[in-house]
Every structure is written in C-alpha cells, then in structure tokens.
C-alpha cells in the first residue's frame, strides 16, 4: 500500500518542523517528505488540504478492559475508539482480571490486539503478583512476552521494602517502573480533593499530601536504586514541585498527567457529578494551573487520556459509590489542542506531549514523521467542531466529565504501519 498525503500542514513535534508538504508512505514507512521519491506511484492519495498531518498519538494510559472486564469494554470497541482518536500506539495498565502478571496473559493480549491490525498495543506488566504488593513478577519473562514496563496500576504497594526490591530488580535489567503516587492510608475512603468542595458537599477527602508523601517515598527509592521510574497521573502543584526538584537533581524520572487534571478542578463536581469521581481526584484551580504550566514547560513529559471506560450503571449511584474513571481515547487530541489554544502554546510543542514525548518514555520508534520512521500518522481537521455525546463516542464507555461539551479538532484519517485503518469523510 502506497499512500500520498497531499497539501497537508505537516507537523513533526520531535524536530519542531511545521510546513505544508506532501508525505509519501510505502511498505509501512515514511519514504518521502515534500519530494516524491523516484518511481513512487501511490495507490491512494489523501487530500489533506486545510488539515494537519502529525504522527499518530501515543497514549500512555488506556484501559482496554481485557482480559476479565469485557462487560465494561472490549478490545474491539476500545481499539476502534483509539483509531477514531488518532491514537496509533497505546500502553495499557495491568489491572485486568486476572492482572497481567503472567507471560501467557500478555502474549494472548498482544496476539488478540495484533490480530485487529489497528493501534499498536504495549502492555504494562504487573510489578507484583496479582498486584498484591508482596511478591515480584517474572519481569524478564514478561518483558519477553511483550511488556514495555512494570506497574502497580492503581493498586497500592504499601510495603516499602518490596517497592525498594522491585525497583532494584527492575533496574538490574534496565526495566522502567511506572508508579502512581498515592498514599493508600491517606487516600482511604476518600473521593475528592481535601478542599472547599469536599467540605461543602460532605465528601470524604483525599489530601494532596497523599500524593506528595507517596512521591517522596518513590523519589528516595529512585535515588537509592537508580531505577528508571515513570510517575503516573500527577494531580497537585506540590507533587509537581517534587518532580521538578528530582529532575533538577538528575534522577531518572519522567511523569504524566491526564486530560482530566489538565482541564478540570474540584469545582467541576458541581452538584455531585459522578463523572468527576476520578482517581487521583480533581484538585484546586491552583493545582490545575500549575500542572498546565508544568506540561508546557516539560516538567510533565506527557499528556495521557487515562481512558477508563465504566458501565453507565456504576455512575448512576451517589457520588462516593460511583466507579472512578472516565473514557478519554477520543478526547486526547482535541483536549490537547484546547490546552494549546488557551495557553498560547505552539502546536509542535503541544503535540509533542502526545506523540514524541510519550514515545520516548515507552522507548518505541513512534511519535515522529521523519524519513524512515514507521508510518503511524494522524490527519485531523483543526477547525471542525463536534460535541461529546454518548452517540459521538465510539468507546463502550460513555462516562466523561466532558459530556455535552463542544470540542474543536476531529480526526479524519488514522494510518498505522502504512495502512489506512480509519477514515471519516465528514472531518
């Protein structure tokens, strides 16, 4: 399949290149930029006039819910949602049922995902068996089965000796460990930021120090073990400052935030909107603004969807009983664009946070449009407005705090490994 993408504004965030030029794809690679390679005759020409051509999105946090939670979402629905969102590589946390703690489970997931010829799926292996935080998994075997890194997902790892050993063991082989900093004791029973809104609504609180205490523990252990740690879903300004200091010190850490924390605050809970029941919780305006600045600055390396489809019924209960989580694969691009617009950030820099930067964290050769790079491409219409509704979302999860919000920017084409896997003629 040879594809020519013509007349599009091509943005390669890794280099900052931003120019109207044609892109030529053959045998799964980018074979030409601007100049048509000799002897190239396209099977398909995509007219990208007035559109933006960028590397396919790389999402570091998308729950596909398989194996085990097929009643929430299926590989089929969620991988389709990824293509609709222009996401061509994603990593999924190990909190499936059973958790991804055995090579066979990972191989099966990789196999089933590959069989769909869609988005590239990079599973995270469980750091401990059953995610119980006591015994290490066979990280070497899991790596060979296809795990890119190791994680506890949202499961607590209370025993710091186990955590220290897990980091040491992972560092032995150069494996990265992904950790979501949240002290399980301080977060126990909590559902909202420990601030004015939780006080007003009488919601059990989660203080920001639940994040900073866990972060401090992790950072001390990183210093001790020199393991590479990726810190998932920061939520507080104080947490961000700890990461900034760690990076200045030269510790091998990276971090991400989700689209929810990028745009929302505790006040979005309004009158108990269950879609705003998220872990980590939505915090204060000051926290959100610090995270936005941190993402622009690069202290926050990546923006993720934190895609977590849940059943509608599990949100139709009182706020604190609602299942936390929000769907997000289809919102990552438009919400990154909205952040760039609102903050006056140049597109190459903004798009880097959902392409080249997360690809660097995953250690995969994705997230760029250069000669010879894999032909994972997203083409979108930056002017097209659409409204987030249960009907417009392809994910099985319709749960999102952004429901009924108008967004700008719609994917028209998604190309993975040189194959056009999604096309929306109306975009």
């Amino acid at each position: 399949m040879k594809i020519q993408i013509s007349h599009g504004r091509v943005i390669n965030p890794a280099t900052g290149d931003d120019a109207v030029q044609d892109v030529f794809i053959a045998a799964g690679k980018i074979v030409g930029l601007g100049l048509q390679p000799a002897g190239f005759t396209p099977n398909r020409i995509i007219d990208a006039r007035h559109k933006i051509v960028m590397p396919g999105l790389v999402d570091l946090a998308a729950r596909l819910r398989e194996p085990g939670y097929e009643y929430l979402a299926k590989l089929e629905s969620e991988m389709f949602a990824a293509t609709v969102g222009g996401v061509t590589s994603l990593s999924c946390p190990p909190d499936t049922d059973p958790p991804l703690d055995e090579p066979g489970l990972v191989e099966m997931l990789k196999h089933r995902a590959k069989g769909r010829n869609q988005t590239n799926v990079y599973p995270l292996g469980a750091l401990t068996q059953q995610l119980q935080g006591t015994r290490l998994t066979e990280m070497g075997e899991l790596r060979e089965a296809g795990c890119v890194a190791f994680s506890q997902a949202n499961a607590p790892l209370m025993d710091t000796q186990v955590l220290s050993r897990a980091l040491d063991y992972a560092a032995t082989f150069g494996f990265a460990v992904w950790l979501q900093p949240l002290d399980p004791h301080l977060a126990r029973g909590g559902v909202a930021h420990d601030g004015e809104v939780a006080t007003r609504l009488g919601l059990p609180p989660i203080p920001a120090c639940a994040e900073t205490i866990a972060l401090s523990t992790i950072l001390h252990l990183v210093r001790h073990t020199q393991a590479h740690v990726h810190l998932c879903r920061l939520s507080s300004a104080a947490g961000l400052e700890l990461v900034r200091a760690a990076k200045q010190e030269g510790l091998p850490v990276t971090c991400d935030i989700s689209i929810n924390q990028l745009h929302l605050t505790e006040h979005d809970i309004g009158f108990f909107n269950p879609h705003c029941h998220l872990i980590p919780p939505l915090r204060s305006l000051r926290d959100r603004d610090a995270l936005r600045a941190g993402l622009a600055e690069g202290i926050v390396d990546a923006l993720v969807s934190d895609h977590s489809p849940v059943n509608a019924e599990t949100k139709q209960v009182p706020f604190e009983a609602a299942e936390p989580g929000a769907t997000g694969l289809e919102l990552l691009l438009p919400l990154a664009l909205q952040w760039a617009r609102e903050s006056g950030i140049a597109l190459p820099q903004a798009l880097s946070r959902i392409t080249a930067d997360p690809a660097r964290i995953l250690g995969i050769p994705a997230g760029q449009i250069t000669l010879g790079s894999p032909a994972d491409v997203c083409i979108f219409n930056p002017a097209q407005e659409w409204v987030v509704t249960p009907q417009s979302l392809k994910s099985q999860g319709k749960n999102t705090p952004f429901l009924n919000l108008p967004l700008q920017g719609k994917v028209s084409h998604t190309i993975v490994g040189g194959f056009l896997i999604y096309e929306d003629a109306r975009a």
Partner: protein
Amino acid sequence: MKGNPQLTAEGQLQHLLTIEGLPRGVLLHILDTAASFEHVAQQEIKKVPLLQGKSVFNLFFESSTRTRTTFEIAAKRLSADVINLNVNASSQSKGETLLDTVDNLSAMQADMFVVRHAESGAAHLIANHVAPGIHVINAGDGRHAHPTQALLDMYTIRHFKKSFESLKVAIVGDVQHSRVARSQIHALTTLHVPEVRVIGPKTLIPRDVEQLGVQVFHDMAQGLRDVDVVIMLRLQNERMNGALLPSRDEYFKYYGLTPAKLARAKPDAIVMHPGPMNRGVEIDSEVADGMQSVILKQVTFGIAVRMAVMAILAGERSSATS
C-alpha cells in the same frame, strides 16, 4: 455546572435537597409557613387537608427514629397517605439499585419522597432521576446535608431570639462528619447571622470550612464566649475511640458542654442539639435538662417545619386555612 436543581426556572422550590444556594426569602417563607401550622397541633382534630390524596414515601436507607417519625406525623397532619420503607432491610439486600427502587415506588404513584441515605449526594441523584411533579425531600445524605433539621433549628432560634441579625452562634463537635452542621452553617449565613463559630478538635473540623463563612475555634471556652446560641452535635460511637479521638472521656473534658463552659456564653443563651444525645459525651445531663436547653422544643417545632416544607413543595403556598 448545572443550576440549582432544587429550584424551578421561576425560582420556586421543587425539591428540598440542601440549604446551600437557597435564597433568604425561601427560607423565611418556610419558617413563616411553619408558624402558621403551629396551631394545628392545638386543634382537637390535628389535621389540615392540604395533602389529601397524595402519597408520601418515607424512603430510609439508613435507620432513624426521630426524623422519620416527625416526617410521618407532619405528612399525616397534612392528610397525606404515608408509606414507610426501611430499605436497608428489603430491596438493597436483594441487590436492587437505588434508582430501581425509586422507579418502582414512582410506579406506585408516589407524589413525594422523603429520603435518607448514608452517602452524600443520594438525594440529588434521586431528584435528578424522578419524573417532573415528584418532589424529593432530603432527610439526610451522608455528611452532606440535612436541610429540614437546619430549618427547624432556625425556627427554634427565631422563636427564642426573635431575629437573626445580631446573633453569635456556636456549633460544637464533629463538624467533619455532620450533615446537620453543614446545613446549619448555610442556613445561619443565609439568614444574616453575623457570627457563626465552629468549635472542635482539628480531627473533626473539615479543611477550608472558613470558606463557608465561619470562624474556627479549638478552645471551647474561647469559642463560647458571649454566644447567644450553642448548638451541640452528636458524636457517633464509632468515632470515639480511634485515630480521630483518643477516648470519650477526653472528648467530654475538652468539648463536652458542662454548666461551667456554658457560663461563658451569654446568660440567656439557648442550648440546642439535633438528637439523639449522648449524655456525658458531648453534653452534661445538667445542661441537657437545664433551663437553657430547648432541645425538646426543637423536636416539636420539627413537625410544623416539615409540614411547611411538604405543603410548599406540593404547591400550597398560602398559609393553612382550617
């Protein structure tokens, strides 16, 4: 953010879910309507026909004696048919969801739900779900709100103090876990009480509570100085011994209302408590049964206030005529 879900577009009360966001006029109207109902209890036939033919469902997902009973009496004095459901014991244990329970009862032509639930936001959830024309009264949701309790407290304060505009009111105890305290704070500030204080140890005072317009005191003697009204909160048994408080004895020592501590308040200060009381934990019997205590009056006024809320929701805006 959605608008205030308990008011119609015209500003009429369609549900009573929380005091927060209700205009002062609405609160005063409820209190005035309650005053007009006080005489009903003195009549030989303690009934007015305002809710005749209406079905009021007392939907209690959490046990309660006083609140449920006073709602029942209030509804019956308005001539409504009252159905009491203790849901803990029935459908929830069979796995039926909250909203399914509500749908089933709505199908039995309910006109009004009086709801108590252990989780904050339950009443909002039900109010957003029911068909137009069905009214929801929050009889306590988690730590969030207990608006009729706050209204009967305001009624009691107005009865004894005549006006709100120059009062100092102290709320003492477990504010953190108290829906009563939250609703009282909103009611007091909305009614222009110039000084609302909360008193308790840091473990029982929620973060940023000052944002609600109150002053925080940890020393009870200081906090009670010159107040006109002392509102004691109930301390739940499960909070007495643990990481929130070391023991009930120590709690009583620092935050229990004794005659000596009460002497710091104005000589004519009134003492209130939403009940049920823990004598010897948050309040000394000498105070609970003393001259300044108006605790039993609160219970009596609770009936008239709940009648007023139901009558207003049912569309009877004029005072009772019988």
